[in-house]
């Protein structure tokens, strides 16, 4: 069963632990600017939204690549950038309508979420359940429910932040 990242902005407190974990796992530094998942803040409303690649079926980035440098990982379903093949032409960065492929000046290549090979650290580091790694069939339901909810009056309470264990990072893992 393929799994996917489920993002629930209503549970996000903007702590940026996901960005710290992502940048350390993938770039070896604690630097949110190098994270592949980004938390967008709506400070005037006190809201936050974690956002990254959904590994969409359309795979605009992959199809737009002129040198076959983005491929599907058959185990995880992630669309992965092959660093050795990427020439840094950036066509994928304009082709992705979700804005989740970025160009890195440091490496001269593009960077996107690869689900950490099937063990995404953003989900493991999230302390409120705003980012979870779940069966792909389940990811849409709560989103649709939340979207449908917006037109009805009053507030719902089914999706409040929930306490969960936080896995701490260890390079040996």
């Amino acid at each position, binding site marked *: 069963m393929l799994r996917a990242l489920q993002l629930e902005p*209503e549970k996000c407190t903007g702590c940026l632990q996901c960005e710290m974990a992502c940048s350390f796992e993938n770039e070896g530094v604690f630097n949110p600017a190098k994270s592949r998942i980004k938390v967008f803040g709506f400070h005037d409303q006190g*809201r936050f939204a974690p956002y990254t690649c959904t590994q969409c079926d359309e795979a605009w980035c992959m199809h737009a690549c002129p040198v076959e440098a983005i491929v599907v990982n058959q185990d995880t379903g992630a669309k992965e950038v092959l660093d050795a093949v990427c020439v840094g032409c950036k066509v994928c960065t304009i082709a992705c309508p979700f804005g989740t492929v970025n160009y890195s000046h440091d490496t001269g290549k593009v960077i996107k979420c690869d689900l950490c090979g099937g063990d995404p650290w953003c989900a493991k580091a999230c302390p409120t359940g705003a980012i979870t790694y779940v069966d792909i069939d389940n990811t849409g339901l709560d989103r649709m429910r939340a979207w449908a909810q917006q037109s009805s009056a009053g507030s719902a309470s089914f999706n409040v932040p929930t306490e969960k264990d936080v896995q701490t990072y260890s390079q040996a893992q």
Partner: protein
Amino acid sequence: MQHIVIGAGPAGVVAVEHLRTYDPDGKITLIGDEPEPPYSRMAIPYYLIKKIDERGTYLRKSAGHFDALGVEILQDKVTAVDPGAKTVSLAGGASASYDKLLIATGASALTPMIPGVESEGVYRCWTLADARNIIRLAQPGNSVVLIGAGFIGCIILEALAASGANLTVVEVENHMVPRMLNDTAGHMIKTWCEEHGVKVLTSTKVDAIESGTGDRALNVVCDNGDNIAADMVITATGVRSNIEFLKGSAVNVDQGVVVDEYLQSSANDVYAAGDVAQGKDFSTGGFNVQAIQPTAVEHGRIAARNMVQGHDHVHRGSVNMNVLDTLGLISSSFALWMGADGGDSAEVSDPDRFRYVNLQFQDDMLVGASTLGLTEHVGVMRGLIEGKVRLDGWKDKLKQDPTRLMEAYIASTQALGHNAHVI
């Protein structure tokens, strides 16, 4: 079913792959006129700076990719198409019959009408063969003149500058990359190039390329009176669809092959895709040649499907978009970047840091954009434009700060806490 695809660029290659998906048993022939395996012209600038070897330019990396798909590759040049007899004529003298034909012959670099342009030492930068010549002559201390500061001219600047050659760029328009950026952004790119040691002459026309006197083989005569001694001249003055072989056939051509919303030409069972196709533009609804990679791929996929399954997939139009790296300064432009009738715009400019964002709106939707120095979340501009996302109150926020594109997109499309009423 015999499918013939003419042209082994991205549109042709994506088309044969999709033809195989939709028609597992059909015969598929891909005809290309260059000797190399199908390769990407987009990758040539990176081959020039030796970031990749020649193999790195290949569109498909695994050996036997086309064999495994059961696609026959034929190196030959198609000289004529007869839609009545459903045949194509080959330069080798043979002819081949098709049930469905896809024309994906791409475009070629224009040779500007300048006296002396055929001289030894004057090259275009379009094919791998051109690239090999450029690598040979772009040497430290040599003088290189680049005619044309459009997309291709700018993207090969890095390779030329890295070679250690002395570079002069001559552009006839009043700013660089005139078909992708406005004059504000174009002037910033010019300043950037000058700061990186490249001499840039805008609003300048080359009158002639003469034999040089002294050490340099060539002398470039400009209309401002300048004479530039050069070892090599590279012309990059635009491209034109490869449609010559269709003259006199029943396939209508204009800028490129005229196609309908199914990418079929005026002739039954003849389709066109990529740089040769005058396809539908998402923003204008008109038909034009975009000559960009994402459109070529989209055309290839849709044409293949319609060739096999009947006309069940309408091409609703491709968003014209470009991303360009000029000596490390990255620019992008999308759709109606020059603005829409009755629309309004927002702009933020920081020339000292080479940062620029220009947004074009119609009602409360983004319809075009151009940027300089932006590498994060660039694609969201496509998402906002192609998704026709209603920005509502976010338009005002973007007019105050055009860099907040991602927040605008998320707030307008996602069930956030505040619009989901869940907290």
